[in-house]
């Protein structure tokens, strides 16, 4: 049975993020299609077939198939699944975090009813997002007068939707089982990201191709529904996963104690509260954690930093070295034969060199995701989080100015993001050392530093929004949406001569455009990123000083 009220309230609470996220993506699809329309796509036909299949491009590629493949199958799928994860993890664990679950369950309704109603609204929201993408996918070719003959757009949208629901229900099930929203969102995102990487890299390695089937993203990434239509087998695998998660969620929520306002209590806090650990670590360090706002803020986000850092270090850093070495020699030779201009044109990296491989796998997407994730999370919670938790009044009863609070929080965000950047550097250098790739440490450091600056830039934007509004979700969603739009802008506009100049308006342009892994630090670009970061921090100080604090 469904509870209409719970269902409707959840929809009302969450529709904005879904609408904005999908609309951004839809608009970027229009932009990408416009970019592809202006280039001579006959260059694709000159590429070897193995290369084309690696890039998920059909041999008889046309503008439409390139645009759908490039925008929807990676960014579209990640965004929709990410939004589904946000909705799914908040379903019941979110009510526990805000302490409203007791009130909700004081009504004569069962827990199973509540979680199922929440699941239904999450599914509807995700469907709504998919419909927006479908509209964008249908309308854009009409606007641009591009033929979509042979493209199965409905099949593509169906695959996107089922894939997103898989991760949404995974987050929902973990949240229902544990009551921990952060854990649910984090674990589901990790499963998604690790799967995305594994499904991309493992098939390139001889003898390891089938291992990719262990990762759920494989059943999305290797369907190409826009070309082949609905792949019933792959959809069945993902749907079976959804059914399993529903069962786990319903059983999970009924078997446990409900939690009450457990914001921020992490596994590490429990470890630290353990008497044995306390004796080992001693009071001294225990006190150090609360020595200042900066240190305490850092300690509040240690779990996220550790998870992000571990993924980047082990998977995207260390593991990529041996992966590169294990890549089939044919692939390397084939990539070697390609002229570099051609690669640049089709947006691929020269995967035959270690630098190109690391750039494609680690730096182009994952490193910015990692640094933006930590910086935006901290920037969003820094000020608005204390207001939402109603601790800001108490904090500001201490003899410290609002300016100092903003600056100390900024310092904490900077330190943690730099930490993640340093871990990326260490991981890549470690991978290079293990497989004896001989990558240049200064260049890796420069690229890691640029990734860190990029993260800090969006962290600072989030901080300014959080300083101005006192609202965590609004700040984080807005700046992450902005980051996504600017990323896509930099990825697709350079394809078109008319639009290429506009890419300079994206901060991502100042990250990898000058090939820092090979060419070293582009100091001018670094300076642009620093300048773009300082402005929102100054704005945050000014905005936070002049505003009434929220009362939670």
């Amino acid at each position, binding site marked *: 049975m469904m509870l209409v009220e719970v269902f409707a309230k959840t929809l009302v609470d969450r529709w904005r993020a879904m609408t904005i996220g999908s609309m951004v993506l839809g608009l970027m699809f229009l932009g990408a299609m416009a970019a592809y329309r202006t280039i001579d796509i006959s260059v694709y036909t000159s590429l070897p077939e193995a290369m084309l299949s690696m890039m998920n491009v059909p041999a008889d590629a046309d503008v439409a198939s390139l645009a759908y493949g490039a925008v929807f199958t990676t960014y579209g799928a990640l965004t929709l699944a990410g939004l589904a994860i946000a909705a799914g993890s908040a379903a019941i664990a979110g009510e526990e975090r805000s302490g409203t679950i007791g009130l909700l369950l004081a009504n004569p309704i069962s827990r199973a009813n509540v979680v199922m109603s929440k699941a239904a609204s999450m599914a509807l929201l995700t469907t709504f997002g998919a419909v927006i993408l479908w509209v964008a996918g249908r309308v854009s070719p009409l606007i641009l007068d591009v033929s979509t003959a042979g493209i199965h757009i409905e099949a593509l949208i169906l695959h996107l939707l089922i894939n997103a629901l898989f991760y949404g229900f995974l987050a929902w099930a973990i949240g229902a089982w544990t009551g921990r929203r952060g854990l649910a969102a984090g674990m589901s995102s990790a499963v998604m990201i690790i799967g995305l990487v594994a499904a991309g890299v493992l098939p390139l390695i001889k003898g390891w191709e089938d291992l990719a089937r262990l990762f759920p993203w494989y059943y999305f990434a290797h369907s190409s529904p826009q070309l082949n239509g609905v792949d019933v087998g792959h959809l069945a695998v993902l749907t079976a996963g959804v059914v399993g998660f529903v069962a786990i969620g319903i059983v999970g929520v009924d078997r446990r104690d409900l939690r009450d306002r457990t914001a921020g209590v992490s596994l590490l806090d429990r470890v630290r509260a353990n008497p044995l650990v306390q004796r080992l670590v001693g009071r001294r360090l225990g006190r150090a954690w609360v020595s200042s706002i900066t240190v305490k803020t850092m300690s509040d986000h240690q779990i996220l930093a550790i998870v992000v850092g571990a993924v980047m270090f082990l998977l995207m850093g260390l593991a990529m070295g041996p992966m590169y070495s294990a890549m089939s020699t044919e692939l390397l030779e084939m990539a070697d034969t390609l002229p570099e201009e051609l690669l640049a044109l089709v947006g691929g990296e020269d995967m035959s060199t270690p630098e190109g491989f690391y750039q494609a796998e680690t730096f182009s997407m994952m490193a910015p995701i990692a640094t933006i994730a930590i910086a935006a999370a901290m920037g969003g919670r820094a000020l608005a989080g204390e207001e939402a938790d109603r601790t800001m009044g108490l904090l500001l009863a201490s*003899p*410290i100015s609002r300016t100092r609070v903003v600056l100390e929080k900024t310092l904490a965000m900077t330190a943690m993001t730099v930490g993640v950047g340093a871990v990326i550097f260490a991981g890549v250098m470690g991978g290079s050392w293990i497989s004896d790739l001989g990558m240049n440490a200064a260049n890796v450091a420069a690229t890691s530093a640029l990734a860190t600056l990029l993260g800090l830039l969006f962290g600072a934007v989030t901080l300014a929004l959080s300083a101005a509004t006192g609202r965590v979700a609004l700040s984080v969603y807005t700046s992450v949406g902005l980051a996504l739009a600017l990323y896509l802008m930099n990825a697709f506009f350079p394809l078109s001569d008319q639009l290429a100049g506009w890419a300079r308006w994206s901060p991502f342009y100042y990250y990898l455009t000058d090939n820092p892994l090979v060419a070293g630090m582009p100091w001018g670009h670094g300076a642009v990123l620093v300048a773009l970061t300082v402005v929102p921090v100054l704005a945050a100080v000014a905005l936070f000083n002049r505003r009434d604090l929220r009362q939670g």
Partner: protein
Amino acid sequence: MIGHDVAAIKTEGLTKHYDDVKALIDLTVTVDQGEVFGFLGPNGAGKTTTIRTILDEIRPTSGLAWILGMDCHDQSVEIRHQLGYLPADLALYPNMTARSLLTYFANLRGGVDWTYVEELAERLDSDLDRRLEDLSSGNRQKVGLIQAFMNRPRLLVMDEPSAGLDPIMQRELQTMMREVAAEGRTVFLSSHALGEVQRVADRVGIIRAGRLVALETVADLRAKALRRIEFTFERPPDASMFNGVPGVRDVTADNRHLVVSFDGTMQALLAALHDGNRLIDISTEDADLDEIFLTYYRGDGAHRDPARSNERDRAEAEAVG
């Protein structure tokens, strides 16, 4: 060094509007050093808005405020060196122990006398080594109180401090507030409970619908305090026995019970008890704040003769509320 002659808190025409809601209207009040000042009002009257405004959490629409002679906005940081604050509806970091929370805030103040913290914890019977999320709301409130008292502030601002405390702890808190005042320091106590304010405060400001409607010493307020006194007799009593006793407002008889609304001296009332009907029980309770307000004050804060309180005044008062 701040002299003892400056006011602990002084506001002039302090006004705060939220969009079109007038949360605080033209508040002018002076709180002297060394007193416990009770700030009394029903829920939503503007007590918390006043506190948040003078502490620079929110900014006044108009008007001025000083704490210990310092401007509440421009010298906010200096003020907070002298301040202890317990917010309403207290929220603390759930993942910390009380000890680490207090250490954190002590560090932000540049250190406090830790033996005093231990002493406070002992008085309030508070276990500092448990995580805050595992504490009951009353025990969390105690941690908030320790936090407010621990730096021996010149001014202690507390918003509904006895929320969640049991009666024994409420008494202990009242003793602690009196001790603060006895040392020449100041307590600004916001509360909706008349009894609590009467027990501990020297002076009382009554706020209603954003306006200060009365400023009295507790002694004066107490003299006005309307009480309901219920007598229980062995046999149904003679309802006219209190006729003519000064301060008797209303008498209702119900079988063996007699309920009297009364604001005179008890002596006169007891002297009026006569005849052979045996008195079994007397119980009295304070009239609630609204009743006092309706009986004694109009919206403009002017004093009313209680005897003339009637339905028309009541209607006026409600129009203000």
